[in-house]
């Protein structure tokens, strides 16, 4: 620690690593068939030159520099180089359409933008004139850009070469710049995807990020030998902490996949030791595992399930170091050689020492599945405004339905209205150019509203049930937490998304999106022919399955006094999958509840009438941006509900 105390800004850390870990790999990229690697020393030299180059092009301290693209070393170096000059990198979600980009770039008043390739560059050029502050554009991959003659368009390589000259002439330049960096100054600006309204720019200082990052590193004992795959959007705070900040703090190597569609294979090749993924990824992985096993020979399948059952019984205890009978341990060892280890290997998870999941609740059995394989998977609770860490599950005491205890140096309290508040080193500086939002989120005394409702359970673990503002009341006054219900539904592999309603209504009702992969596979196995999601959605058999799931949820709700009243009386299966391109989901695929409610008003009305079906016409956007519309008669189904009884626990568990 002591030696790192003075290292309170990113550039200082980078310089430090270049000295202490000169020969160790700092970053890799799967490119041209192999994992091209750069050592800390090389990265430092590159970044120095790059910074000088940017300086020459006129990037100044306090400027904002947009970063548009998927995880690429040069884009990470852009962050470092910008911080070198005291400028503030603003990574942007690259899969966003031009308008989305324009809003953020304009709002952030970026003077520079660095793009990954032709595709992104075209986007920027198309919105350039609407971003008056934008001066220079720099691109990483020159492919297809050779004929572009805009004179404010620069090839990364040229920028760095120009910088090299400067650095060569003025050897002290780099150190002067580095020493000038201030820990309390802004180091990065990240836009929250904003479940409601326009995205807001969260400004975070070197201190915010580095202290929290360092705390987590110490808590989890990460070190320079760890391996991380950087595959989540750079604009997302998680990636910034896990793949950038913590890499600099702990000195471990970050690897970038070849392309977004090779991630799975790259993950398998790399075999990271430190891994983060949102629940949906763990979920889909599990689904594919199960589907692939379906095609295995009978004996193999038997063996697989036999040992998976055993793992479910004993695996977690063994992982948590609880006492387990010798026989069970032996059985587990056999299972390990025959199933667990090979399976982990096949998924590229065999070397994982620490796995995180967060963002939304993860299904208990999904969570258990990975832990029972011996993967130390933990949930954490955090947000951009807190530089991620608010709460982490401590080793040894993991509970599927909580997010653990407050992170180091972080205080957490629950308001009377059930909202969770925190205070800590990671607390953000401000929302950029948005004092009022800043004020209403961040109190003078440093406490910050999370906007989530929840409570501490008996042993001090935090349990999140929903967005505070979404927690509503049925007309009879019983409280209903839509997210809580939706999650229970989504825990079924067959169900992809669910939207529950009931605030100011007489009873609870829900939209359901099934998982096309899982259900589609089921359909094939029962040779049910279908051409589209829509067709399958209307199928009575599908409805039957969904009804079973809904009633299972009702049963489990019936066991918890606070929510027993909010069981689902009526539901429907949506005729189309909720889609980010239609604005129904956020880029991090969270449901935009309000938007959906307005868009499908007729369906909701139907849910609260006695209709058994309802016609609806919906506009859709295709990948290529073209618009079209689909119409369907969505049928509505009743589900049984159950009286409250705590003893039904057992039943619910199934």
């Amino acid at each position, binding site marked *: 620690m002591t030696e790192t105390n003075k290292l309170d800004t990113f550039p200082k850390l980078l310089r430090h690593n270049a000295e202490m870990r000169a020969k160790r790999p700092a970053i890799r990229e799967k*490119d*041209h*068939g192999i994992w091209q690697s750069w050592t800390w020393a090389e990265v430092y030299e590159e970044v120095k030159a790059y910074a000088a180059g940017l300086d020459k092009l006129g990037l100044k301290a306090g400027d904002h520099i947009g970063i548009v693209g998927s995880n690429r070393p040069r884009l990470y170096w852009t962050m470092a180089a910008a911080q070198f000059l005291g400028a503030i990198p603003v990574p942007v979600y690259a899969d966003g359409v031009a308008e989305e980009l324009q809003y953020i770039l304009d709002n952030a008043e970026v003077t520079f933008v660095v793009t990954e390739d032709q595709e992104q560059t075209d986007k920027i050029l198309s919105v350039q004139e609407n971003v008056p502050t934008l001066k220079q554009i720099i691109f990483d991959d020159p492919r*297809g850009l*050779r*004929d572009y003659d805009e004179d404010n368009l620069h090839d990364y390589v040229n920028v760095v070469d120009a910088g090299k000259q400067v650095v060569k002439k003025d050897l002290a330049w780099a150190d002067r710049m580095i020493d000038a960096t201030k820990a309390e100054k802004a180091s990065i600006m990240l836009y929250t995807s904003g479940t409601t309204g326009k995205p807001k720019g969260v400004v975070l200082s070197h201190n915010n990020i580095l202290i929290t990052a360092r705390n987590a590193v110490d808590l989890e004992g990460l070190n320079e030998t760890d391996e991380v795959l950087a595959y989540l959007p750079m604009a997302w705070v998680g990636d910034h902490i896990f793949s950038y900040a913590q890499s600099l703090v702990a000195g471990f190597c970050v690897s970038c996949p*070849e*392309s977004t569609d*090779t991630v799975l294979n790259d993950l398998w090749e790399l075999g990271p030791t430190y891994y983060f993924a949102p629940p949906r990824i763990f979920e889909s992985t599990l689904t594919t595992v199960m589907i692939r096993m379906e095609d295995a020979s009978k004996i193999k399948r038997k063996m697989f399930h036999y040992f998976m059952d055993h793992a479910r019984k004993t695996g977690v205890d063994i992982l948590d170091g609880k006492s387990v009978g010798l026989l069970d341990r032996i059985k587990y060892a056999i299972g390990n050689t025959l199933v667990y280890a090979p399976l982990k290997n096949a998924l590229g998870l065999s070397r994982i020492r620490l796995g995180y999941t967060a963002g939304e609740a993860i299904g208990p059995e999904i969570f258990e599945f990975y832990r029972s394989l011996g993967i130390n998977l933990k949930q954490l609770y955090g947000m951009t405004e807190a530089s991620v860490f608010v709460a982490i599950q401590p080793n040894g005491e993991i509970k599927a339905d909580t997010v653990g205890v407050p992170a180091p140096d972080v205080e957490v309290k629950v308001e009377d209205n059930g909202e969770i508040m925190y205070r800590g080193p990671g607390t953000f500086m401000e929302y950029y150019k948005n004092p009022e939002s800043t004020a209403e989120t961040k109190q003078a005394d440093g406490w910050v509203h999370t906007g989530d409702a929840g409570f501490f359970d008996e042993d001090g673990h935090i349990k999140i049930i929903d967005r505070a503002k979404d927690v509503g009341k049925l007309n009879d006054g019983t409280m209903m937490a839509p997210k809580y219900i939706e999650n229970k539904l989504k825990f079924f592999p067959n169900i992809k998304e669910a939207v529950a309603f009931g605030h100011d209504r007489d009873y609870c009702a829900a939209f359901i999106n099934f998982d096309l992969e899982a259900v589609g596979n089921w359909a094939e196995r029962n040779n049910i022919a279908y051409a589209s999601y829509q067709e399958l959605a209307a199928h009575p058999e599908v409805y039957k399955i969904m009804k079973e799931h809904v009633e299972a949820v009702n049963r489990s709700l019936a066991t918890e006094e606070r929510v027993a009243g909010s069981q689902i009386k009526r539901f429907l299966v949506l005729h189309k999958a909720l889609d980010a391109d239609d604005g129904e989901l956020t880029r991090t695929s969270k449901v935009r509840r309000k938007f959906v409610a307005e868009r499908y008003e007729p369906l909701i009305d139907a849910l609260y009438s006695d209709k058994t079906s309802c016609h609806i016409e919906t506009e859709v956007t295709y990948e290529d941006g073209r618009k079209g519309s689909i119409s369907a008669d969505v049928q509505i189904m009743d589900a049984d509900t159950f009286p409250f009884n705590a003893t039904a626990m057992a039943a619910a568990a199934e």
Partner: protein
Amino acid sequence: MTETNTNSRIGEELLSVNNIDLSFGGVKALTDISFNINKGEIRSIIGPNGAGKSSMLNVINGFYQPQVGHVRFKGKDYTPMRPALAAKSGIARTFQNIALFKGMSTLDNIMTGRYLKMHSSFIEQALYIGRAKREELEHREKVEEIIDFLEIEAIRKTPVGRLPYGLQKRVELARALAMEPELLLLDEPMAGMNLEEKEDMSRYIIDVNEQFGTTIALIEHDMGVVMDLSDRVVVLDYGRKLADGSPDEVSSNQDVIDAYLGVSH
């Protein structure tokens, strides 16, 4: 690979065929064909099936020896041209019905394209030392550039036999590019492709021409594609030259319209 300035892409004459007569056992395939190809241009040879397009290509890279006429390449006369000579002097080609090495992976197929650029001795190879190893690695890098260029990373190590038609065509192009040819002959590069694949292929052809400054001569009978690709077009019909000139000139030429457009559409 040599970069060229796109503005003045087209340079002086690279290859010319002069008064070519070719016949198989009395059957005339080509009659008094002459035309030239300039450095850096995309030149198309079109015509209905059986017009002698492929024969023309086979004369250029020496599979067929014409009874009359000669091929002039880089200011040197070849009477006749021979495949080996063609390869050495910088002419590469692809075939209408794909001629890949079925037993090898995509990577090996493309590596084979570097054959003439490797010089390691038998012993070095047997022991995998010295030049042999060095060459393997150097050329692998070059080949990877091409793989990246044609976006076939995903199939790098798949046996080409297992690839779908469109990809095989692309691998064959990659193999030809690996030779770093000055003149690239493409025999119906888009035959049997769907629209999307055709568009991709045309994009690659243009990219090759621009990025590496490779001169390209291609055969097509689908006129549409050719017209927006090529700088100049030669039209053959029944082994005779019908027209020669810019796409517009050619497509407005009456003989062509009769002989060609009439036939295929």
